[in-house]
């Protein structure tokens, strides 16, 4: 079923999607589709986001109060739901980012101990 290209993409670790969404929203409010596109684009299409999985994540973040939702109109004048980072979310992003850095560093050290 899967093509070679798809196999080279990396499946997202649990919880990582939350981090990516928060990171994406730092640049300003965005609607769901735009967030998905941005994640894909910014990772040079390495990260494969099954776009649907965005929605549980968005709802989870809203429930935790890290992002908020507001009605607005999109670039082509269509009704759209915009997600916006809250102050709490901004703080959380910092925490999560530093955690991620630590984790990534640790894994990197294990994988390449000689370097």
């Amino acid at each position: 079923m899967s093509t070679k290209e798809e196999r080279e993409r990396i499946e997202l670790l649990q919880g990582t999607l939350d981090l990516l969404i928060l990171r994406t929203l730092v640049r300003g409010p965005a609607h769901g589709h735009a967030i998905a596109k941005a994640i894909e684009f910014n990772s040079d299409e390495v990260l494969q986001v099954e776009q649907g999985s965005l929605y549980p994540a968005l709802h989870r973040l809203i429930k935790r109060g890290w992002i908020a939702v507001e009605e607005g109109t999109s670039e082509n004048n269509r009704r759209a739901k915009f997600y916006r980072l809250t102050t709490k979310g901004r703080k959380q992003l910092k925490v999560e980012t530093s955690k991620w850095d630590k984790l990534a560093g640790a894994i990197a050290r294990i994988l390449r101990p000689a370097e």
Partner: protein
Amino acid sequence: MGRGKRMLEELDADIREHIERETQDNIERGMSPEEARYAAMRKFGNVMRVKEETREVWCSTWLDELWQDLRFGLRMLRKSPAFAAIAVLTLALGIGTNTAIFSVVDAVLLRPLPYNDPSRLVWATEHFGFGPSTVVSADFPAWKERNHVFEQIGASGGTGGANLTGAGEPTRVTVNNVTTGFFSMLGVEPIVGRAFLPSEGKKGQEHVALLNEDLWRSRFGADTRIVSKAIQLDGTTHTVVGVMPASLRYPRADVWTPLALDDEIFSPHSPRWMMLAVIGRLKPRMEMRQAQSDLQLLTQAMNKQYPPQASRFREHVAVEVISLHEVLVHNVRSLLMILLGATGFVLLIACANVSNLLLSRGVARGREIAVRVALGAGRLRLVRQLLTEGLLLVVIGALLGSVTGLWATKILKELIPAGLPADMHLDQRIFAFSAVISAVALLIFGLVPAFIASRTDVNETLKEGGVHLSAISGTHRLRGLMAAGEIALSLILLIGAGLLSRSFLRLMEVPLGFDPNHLLIATVARPLTVDFNSQLHAAFFRDSLQRIRSLPGVTQAALTERYPLGPFRNATRIVHVQGAEDFRPMQPVSVTAISPDYFHLIGVRLLSGRTFSEGDVADTQRVAVLNQRLAHMIFGDRNALGQHIGFGPPPAPWSEIVGIVADMREDAIEREPAPELFVPYTQHPSFVMSLMLRADSNPEALASAVRSAVASVDKNQPVSEIMTMDEVLANSVAPRRFRALLLGLFAALALLLAAIGIYGVIAYSCSLRTCEFGIRIALGADRTDILKLVIRQGFGLTVIGLGAGIAGAIGLTRYLSSLLYEVKPTDPLTFVAVSLILSAVALVACYIPARRVAEVDPMVALSTNRSGPQ
């Protein structure tokens, strides 16, 4: 949740929007609309799952998972209904018996008395080194006037009786005298009318009465206009002032009248004193110890006021103050604790059984659990799943158990002492208790197997085809130990029940000393009127006796002041011996007035001399008959006949001893015969006598004839009580029989559960070893060898259980000793017999699965690769 609800409502629209944008993008990249839409859908993923997961975000996950577990648990239970039924019934038995006994314990021991601020109510009494504990009426005024410890203090006389006439059929009612402030001290208000006024506690004013609600309803049709009406008690007019609620059970009576405190009986120089029960309400923060020493000083100070001849019994007087609640429940406390312990054992056995069942299933479900672990289920989640299944069992069991338990409380009402104002309530306390023991049960039986099962090693289990051998051997030892523990606990209960039953049987074998067959006893109490004339009473009883004798069906009839095993109505007297004035008898002696043929009627043997005759009347020489014990106590081996004795307040005339009769059990079957003295009723008339007759067939059928015979002598004379001797005997052993039955019932439950337990363990181990046994048989093993192998395993467990049980029983049965009769708490016969019974039951429980597995066809056995019983 409102925010989440709105978000979820818009989710469909959001998803549609999203997919449209993606489709649009794809079209812009040059795809055909159809292609573009398909690609967008694929990229989005499974819409249903997305929606599901999004919804889950907003649901409370804890409750959600619990719900999942519950549904799964129900499904699992439905899949194995036999397991579910046994487990639920077992738990229902355990929880039900505990709830039932607890509801009694709660009503009797835990709930405060239904009086105002009951913790300050105390009971005060004097001890004189002999006789009953009571307060001599002459001490009461000092207690009342000069104490420093009570806010209020009240007294009640012993409950007596009176003939109630002038309100329909004459009837006998119980009457109690109380000081006027007694009920207000308890804090109990009349439901109709008023309580006694202080002025009614004076001589001449005391002819007022409070009715018990029960009497008021049954006799006066609950008519509130009864207040200020007159009733006749023993021919004296009393004005009814009010009605007390039936819930007031202390002091017990149908009618209460005031105690006149200026009566002669309250003087130290009175020729007779009254025995009082004294209740006081302590001042706030006053301790019982202080009250006791205060009253002790007052009582000692009173000693000087008494005439010198009283000094002998006054010198060692000791006052005791105990809480009223304690006095009322004292008799049943240890019994209730024993029963609570017994039901606790039943619950433990039930838990061990269910635990065993769950363990079997846990191991049997090894494969399922392993698969779930392999699929990523967390261990904690698994433990929770197994616990939830346990929770389901326990909840259903508890509901079932509480219902049956509450039904059982109807039978257990007998455990509540008659004088205790307590009723069993089914309220949140009982349900809370039920819930707590259910939770404890769940922890005991649920956690261990859940934990063990969740430690399943995935790889091993899947490789072994569902059976993980190390897990089995580990749990197997535990299961064996639990079965042995069940045997031990049930052995302890069985031994307890065995000891009580044996006591009961010993009691039934006791020679009574009289012939109880076909006897009817009708007790008649003459009114204690002002113009009391004892000779008139004697004449009344003589006439009644004559009429009863001539009734058809009556073979013999006689009169006695007191009948065997009946209430203690007669006097006790200190006996003096003429010519041996220095002789000091040890104890007061029961003196019973009888008619001449009483001994003949009741079948007491005359040992020497003669019984009374019609010639022994008021104006002839006073005569007395002694029982053997009294004769021996006074005269030893010397001849008692012809000696003269005196009894009663001086100057008592001497009575000649004309006969000695054999002893009989008068006080209680379990009580050794006491020294007794009999006198002719014509010389010592009494106003309460029992007419006793022996019928040629069913004595009960004569009851109404006896009533009318009495009424034909005096139409205002009710019969207080009419009973056959069989009933008297049954009543006298009823508490003992009830206790033995109750403990026997619990022990039988325990035995049943333990048998199921050991059966379960052996059957399970057999099913695991089916394959092994198949090989053995195929290799030529005898089937009886297999049978022996299995039974040996079960017998090993039984022996361990018996050993532990006997050790436990030796430690515990001494708490039963106060309930035993002529049986030692370590009675070897009971221990051996019960152990044998239990072993036999255990052997049968092992034999059934053993035989089944020994008969297995090796071909079938070898082809099964099953994980265990389902």
